[in-house]
């Protein structure tokens, strides 16, 4: 059992993560007639891309925090009707595919300003608001309000209380959330390639451009390595912040802390924060639906009806893309659950290693585009000429989903009281029976939640899939991207229609997750 729990995830990671990574390193550093890695680094374009990547990530993070902080406060401090619904809805943008988010903002913005840095920042913020609200809001709800009350009796006004008491207490959560958002926006891909136009590219987008459009594999590999170094740095900072977050104790049960708003000021704050959130999250999605229904001057289902017919944008009908997406996502979910679930058992079990834990988190940081690119250059010759195999798509998607599965399942497993296992043994349950009677029932809910997340992530996966999906077997996000690359009103409308369908399927799978009722585990 132990051997399997260790062996399967390690073998999977070795073949499908470390090997492609090695291929990228080899391609990037190999010196031959075409020049060396240093040439790519010295290119002013590289510096420009790196600079844009960093500053858009910083600015996006700041914007995200600015929008999310008031909402975190009201969700963390006040009870009001529908609070749990709002908490659940806030997560929706985070699980939406980046392609859908990008399209929503494309639909929202007037034609002449739709491509540029501003929409990238706003779309990034839209995508990541959930991270800050969940991490900071949950932490805020856990802070003992009596500390603030004590400060008040010592003569501190509201401003002084926030500055001298709340903010320092909140700092670790805020820092951890910002670090995660920075990481996500640093590797932002779908949003940048769709909203950025040709002028604005992050490292991630430039890797894609070099590999697919310019076909300069060396440049793509070198840029991947630059990205890897930056991400490793950011991950290291994030993990340190998370450790500090974990030790900042004194967390109290939420019900002791939240209370209804009392003063008019508090009610206004509540209404204002939630209203802003509703507009910020709801408007782009509403406009997306509106655009998918607009045909010519009026409204209709024309774009949806056309989905069953062949199109010049794809080698398959859009309808087939939907089916492909569902099949791939289901397969990816199965792989992610088996590998991620076993890994969670291995990490939590006796002698569980932090090494495996860290190794499993790597794909999260290595970024999807790098994975896709790595697959393309690693699995390109006999006997591992796999890049055109249909099954390679769900494998790549599973790789992206596995860190999430582990993060959801492992804490639940860890929370199983060892004495419950001992109690079961003393009542006559042999080891296998203990696993079935104690561990599995407790973990099954977490597995259901993990399955929902894995399905949603695989469904929307774009960065790796865009490299690997065969032209005759496109997925939804890839199909949307192809439609956008074509002129014409019907192509645009079909892209919007597919985005609406993708959003609906994702929302449905997340709804099922909420039904499985998760015990809140961190920010997911």
């Amino acid at each position, binding site marked *: 059992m132990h051997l399997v729990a260790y062996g399967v995830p390690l073998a999977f990671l070795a073949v499908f993560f470390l090997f492609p990574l090695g291929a990228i390193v080899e391609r990037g550093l190999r010196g031959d007639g075409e020049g060396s890695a240093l040439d790519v680094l010295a290119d002013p374009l590289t510096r420009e891309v790196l600079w844009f990547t960093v500053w858009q990530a910083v600015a996006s993070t700041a914007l995200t925090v600015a929008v999310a902080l008031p909402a975190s406060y009201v969700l963390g401090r006040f009870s009001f009707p529908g609070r749990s619904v709002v908490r659940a809805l806030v997560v929706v943008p985070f699980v939406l595919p980046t392609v859908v988010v990008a399209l929503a903002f494309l639909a929202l913005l007037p034609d002449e300003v739709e491509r540029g840095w501003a929409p990238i920042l706003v779309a990034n913020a839209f995508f990541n608001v959930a991270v800050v609200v969940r991490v900071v809001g949950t932490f805020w709800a856990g802070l003992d309000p009596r500390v603030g009350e004590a400060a008040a009796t010592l003569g501190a006004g509201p401003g002084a209380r926030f500055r001298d008491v709340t903010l320092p207490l909140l700092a670790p959560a805020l820092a951890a959330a910002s670090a995660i958002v920075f990481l996500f926006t640093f590797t932002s891909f779908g949003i940048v390639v769709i909203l950025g136009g040709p002028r604005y590219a992050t490292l991630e987008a430039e890797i894609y451009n070099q590999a697919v459009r310019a076909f300069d594999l060396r440049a793509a590999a070198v840029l991947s390595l630059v990205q890897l170094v930056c991400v490793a740095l950011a991950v290291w900072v994030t993990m340190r912040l998370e450790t500090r977050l974990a030790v900042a104790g004194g967390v109290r049960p939420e019900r002791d802390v939240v209370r209804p708003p009392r003063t008019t000021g508090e009610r206004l704050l509540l209404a204002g924060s939630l209203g802003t959130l509703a507009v910020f999250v709801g408007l782009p999605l509403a406009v997306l639906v509106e655009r998918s229904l607009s045909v010519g001057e009026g409204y209709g289902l024309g774009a949806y009806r056309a989905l069953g017919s062949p199109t010049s944008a794809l080698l398959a009908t859009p309808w087939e893309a939907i089916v492909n997406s569902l099949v791939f996502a289901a397969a990816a979910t199965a792989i992610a659950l088996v590998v991620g679930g076993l890994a969670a058992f291995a990490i939590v079990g006796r002698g569980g290693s932090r090494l495996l834990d860290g190794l499993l988190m790597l794909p999260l940081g290595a970024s999807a585009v790098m994975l896709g690119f790595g697959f393309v250059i690693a699995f390109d010759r006999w006997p591992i000429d796999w890049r055109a195999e249909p099954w390679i798509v769900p494998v790549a998607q599973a790789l992206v989903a596995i860190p999430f599965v582990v993060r959801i399942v492992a804490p639940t497993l860890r929370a199983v*009281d060892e004495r419950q296992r*001992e109690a*079961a*043994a003393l*009542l*006559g349950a*042999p080891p296998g029976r203990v696993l079935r009677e104690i561990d599995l*029932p*407790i973990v099954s809910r977490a597995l259901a939640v993990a399955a929902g997340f894995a399905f949603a992530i695989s469904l929307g996966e774009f960065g790796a899939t865009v490299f690997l999906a065969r032209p005759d077997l496109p997925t939804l996000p890839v199909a949307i991207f192809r439609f956008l690359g074509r002129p014409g009103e019907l192509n645009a409308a079909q892209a919007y229609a597919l985005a609406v369908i993708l959003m609906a399927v994702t929302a449905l799978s997340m709804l099922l997750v909420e039904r499985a009722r998760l015990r809140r585990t961190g920010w997911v």
Partner: protein
Amino acid sequence: MSGLRVESATVRLGGRTVLDDVTLGVADAEVVTVLGPSGSGKTTLLRAIAGLQPLDAGRILLDGRDLAGVPPHRREIGLVFQDHALFDHKDVLGNVVFGLRMRGDAPARARERARELLELVGLAGYERRSVHTLSGGEQQRVALARALAPEPAVLLLDEPLGSLDRRLRDRLLEDLARLFADLRLTALYVTHDRAEAFALGDRVAVMRAGRVVQVGTPDELWARPVDEDVARFLGLANVSDGRVVRPEAVGVRRARDESRGQGVVERAERQGPTVRLLVRLDDGDVLETVTTALDHPESGERVEVEIDPEGILRLREP
């Protein structure tokens, strides 16, 4: 020979000897309580008997059979955990029926027996309740019913009343004593509370720093504590210089005038039917005594002190 026998059991954890050459027997239908301060190795002793903690030396016999190599689930030893360790994901009946299912009882028969046990511990009608909704005392009763259900040869209890408030504890203590007697249980009961140990144990084993330092009936222990530490831990007063002066052997009455008397009352506290008096003797020592009188000397009053030589106990050198 029947019953449980621990022979020279030794457990070392992280370089420390947590259980040091412990030998202890529990006869059939006997209740032995293990009394000791926290960290004295009580819990480790129970875990070793249950098979949850391997022994570094010594052996454990059940009805004459060596349990070495027998895994916990085949030992037929029940354990009531400190803080209960109930199965959170099962309801009350699901908890109690667990051990019966494991030994292969038919579902209907197992449920029937589980209901009987819930009735026995006073929780009839609680079958479908979630364990989260129970009070501490109710959880304790479920844990007891769960451990008793598969009819273990020996029941181990690890501070089962430790987390409960005092009044509830006193009530459950009586219930437990009655249950032990009615079911003729063979039980080993661990506690740091002298009153619990004396109330429940046919015999009491006093543990200190991983060793069993004295075993005897409550009366034997009270009459002959083995050393000063044990005497103090049992709650005997006036322990010093290798001797104990029993409070009940100290007679006190108001001095007729200031020139008489050997000391001054420093404190007088009523404790239910008795009054505890602390007398500061003229030579500086403090002597504790009890009286049942309603008209007793108050603090500050000078008193004459008389000690019955029968009430002075010489202890073995420590």
